[in-house]
């Protein structure tokens, strides 16, 4: 485990640094915004106990709302990505800062306040030279609590495409890659410790220095953002996003290369691991994302569920394309060759020995062997329950297992048959073969770029570029590329580029 974490560190260092940067920025901006609001409100209410306490109650109520619910509630209002993530984090950071600031400002020895009044000091002198400095240690401890909470909660930002270290955690869960999961968790914990320590150090600094430091950080931050903003807005940027995992990331990078190759004036920004299907679909409808790869099966089964789904890939694609145009006004460009759908896999040696090529072949000998299935696959009608009837399968025993464990079980010869996805890198890693669905039971899952039509009208080059992938990339190609990214830890961009050059889709 430790080795694989270290390996991850080496191979993914750029991604890790990017995620760390995103995470820090996300947390920092959120705490800063929360601090400005919370401290201002505490100052505003410090002489109005009733209002101050009402605010405290409100802050407490906000704190009890589960963070996922907050994120969910924000999507229809502000869409997905960084903005809702920051809003949610600001809400979480608000209460500790407000509570501590308010108590710091109001629990000052009343005789000191009376003294300040007696000497005829101005309001601003009393606030900035007396009340705030006296409340400072409490304010800082509130900031510390807020920072730690936010750094922890910010891992959820990955769910809605906000980026950050949560990306590793989500990917780890998705791929059953514990090293990745741990990496994300450890880094966010470390980050929390470092920031907590930094704020503790700050509490030892005098009030004046503190103000100087905070303003310096603020000025730097504002400067950084302005520069970034100016640089970004000077070019035409197209946003390409993808779901969690290596496959969408490889495809995104291919889109980027192809578009930039076709029209060098266009600049493509990639947003990998942008959350799950629903988030991404909302994002493209809200025009926060211009392009992302989607599967025909997902369109027909999840986004717009159909009663009958054709088992002919071509018909399924056309249905999906028409529905997307009609209901969402989105363009669905030509699909690639491979499908990423359910499959049944066995060890290569096992297949050879029993001459297995199709699921029908397997049905003949199924009564002698055991299988391990993912629980979703086992329960669903379009999974094993339907498959069983179609092919007349009768395994000796069926174990329901975590996706990752069932691959481990078959690799170690403990089981003979597993379910999987047709492009899973484990098929290559564990030397498995996937059996042909000769009766066409599984609905087709063909990948194709889903695009915002406005961008196509504006830049017709994009359509030309993306259509170069039409009919390209076989299942074997995709398994290999997933293998190179997930197991060999190569960069998705390198893998994507290599494929495009090899297949002469771009010039070197």
């Amino acid at each position: 485990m430790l080795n694989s974490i270290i390996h991850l560190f080496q191979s993914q260092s750029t991604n890790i640094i990017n995620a760390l940067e995103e995470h820090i920025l996300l947390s920092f901006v959120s705490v800063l915004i929360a601090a400005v609001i919370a401290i201002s409100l505490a100052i505003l209410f410090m002489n109005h106990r009733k209002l101050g306490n009402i605010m405290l109650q409100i802050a407490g109520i906000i704190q009890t709302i589960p963070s996922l619910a907050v994120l969910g509630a924000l999507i229809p209002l502000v869409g997905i990505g960084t903005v809702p993530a920051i809003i949610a984090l600001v809400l979480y950071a608000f209460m500790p800062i407000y509570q501590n600031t308010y108590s710091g400002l109001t629990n000052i020895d009343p005789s000191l306040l009376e003294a300040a009044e007696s000497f005829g000091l101005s309001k601003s002198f009393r606030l900035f030279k007396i009340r705030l400095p006296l409340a400072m240690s409490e304010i800082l401890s509130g900031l510390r609590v807020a920072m730690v909470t936010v750094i922890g909660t910010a891992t959820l930002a990955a769910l809605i495409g906000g980026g950050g270290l949560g990306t590793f955690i989500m990917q780890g869960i998705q791929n059953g890659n514990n090293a990745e999961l741990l990496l994300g968790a450890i880094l966010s914990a470390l980050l929390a410790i470092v920031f907590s320590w930094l704020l503790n150090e700050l509490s030892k600094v005098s009030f004046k220095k503190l103000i100087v430091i905070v303003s310096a950080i603020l000025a730097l931050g504002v400067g950084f953002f302005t520069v970034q903003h100016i640089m970004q807005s000077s070019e035409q940027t197209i946003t390409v996003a993808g779901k969690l995992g290596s496959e969408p990331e490889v495809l995104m990078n291919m889109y980027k290369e192809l578009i930039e190759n076709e029209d060098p004036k266009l600049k493509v920004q990639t947003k990998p691991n942008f959350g799950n299907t629903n988030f991404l679909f909302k994002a493209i409808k809200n025009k926060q994302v211009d392009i992302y790869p989607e599967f025909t099966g997902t369109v027909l089964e999840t986004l717009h569920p159909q009663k009958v789904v054709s088992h002919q890939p071509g018909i399924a694609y056309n249905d999906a394309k028409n529905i997307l145009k009609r209901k969402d006004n989105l363009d669905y460009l030509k699909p690639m060759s491979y499908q990423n759908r359910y499959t049944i896999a066995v060890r290569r040696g096992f297949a050879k020995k029993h001459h297995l090529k199709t699921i029908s072949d397997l049905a003949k000998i199924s009564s002698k062997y055991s299988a391990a299935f993912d629980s979703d696959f086992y329960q669903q009608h379009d999974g094993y329950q339907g498959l069983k009837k179609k092919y007349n399968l009768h395994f000796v025993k069926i174990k329901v297992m975590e996706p990752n464990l069932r691959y481990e079980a078959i690799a170690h010869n403990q089981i003979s048959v597993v379910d999987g996805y047709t492009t899973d890198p484990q098929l290559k890693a564990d030397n498995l073969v996937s059996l042909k669905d000769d009766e066409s039971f599984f609905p087709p899952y063909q990948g194709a770029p889903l695009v915002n039509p406005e961008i196509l009208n504006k830049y017709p080059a994009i359509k030309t570029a993306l259509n170069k992938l039409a009919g390209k990339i076989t299942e074997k190609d995709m398994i290999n590329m997933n293998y190179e990214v997930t197991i060999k830890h190569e960069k998705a961009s390198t893998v994507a580029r290599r494929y495009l050059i090899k297949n002469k889709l771009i010039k070197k």
Partner: protein
Amino acid sequence: MKSKLQFKHIYVTYNKVDAVHDLNLEINSGELFVLVGASGCGKTTTLKMVNRLQTPTKGQILYKNQDISKFPLRKMRQNIGYVFQNIALFPNMTILENAAIQLRAKNVSLSKAKPIVTRLMKKVGLDPKTYLNRMPSELSGGQQQRVGTVRALAADPDIILMDEPFSALDPISREKLQDLVLNLYNELHKTIIFVTHDMNEAIRLGTRIGVMEHGHLLQVGTADDIVTHPANKTVAAMFHNQRSANIADMIAGGFYKLVDHPNDQQYIRVDKGISIPQLAEKLKSNPIIFEGKYLITTKDLLSFISEN
């Protein structure tokens, strides 16, 4: 002496109870006026009305014949020094910053305030070099209250309010600080209004004393007046201890000789009623003559003490 501060029919009422009831009082310019009474008698409330930390429910306070409620509040307060019962130095500021605070309220820069504070620090017996840059927590209670006194004097106010300033201190520090107040008063001749519950302190410090109970001002007069001619039984009871420790009691008890040679230079002359400890202090050097005719010696004092 011109009357400076006048309380006219002042009432302060909380929940229908009078904390101060029909207070009429004139405090003269340059006077060290002591308000004395048990806690809750209304003396601090009275004090706080002077700088408008407390607003009277009814009545009027005049300063130089002008209603103080008409003065701009901050400006008025900048001209009133205040020494607090619990000292109330700001823990986040150095001694210099604390002492200079009223000067800074008057927009005097810290560098201009420093020489003023330095001079006053010397006056109260604190070495400026040692203390100016320290934090209040590094000083003893007595030292802190000396700083508190410097703070009240620094802006050269017309009036200084002292609210039980020494009640939290040990007896030795208290006595030293009482001496300090007397010295400063004799030197600067500021108007000082001093609140205490300690009759001893009142007698020791006050040029005049106002005795309060349950919001009523019972009597105003010099220490002598009050001790020898209490206005009523309550005042008499309050000052009973002080009475028993008075030189007048020795005379009444016959612990004296009549003077043969009243002009003899070796005797110390005393004309005012003084306490027994004050008397003992003086007798350490020479016998004294009281009111020009009673000669009191150490032996007389010892006999008085042994018999009482």
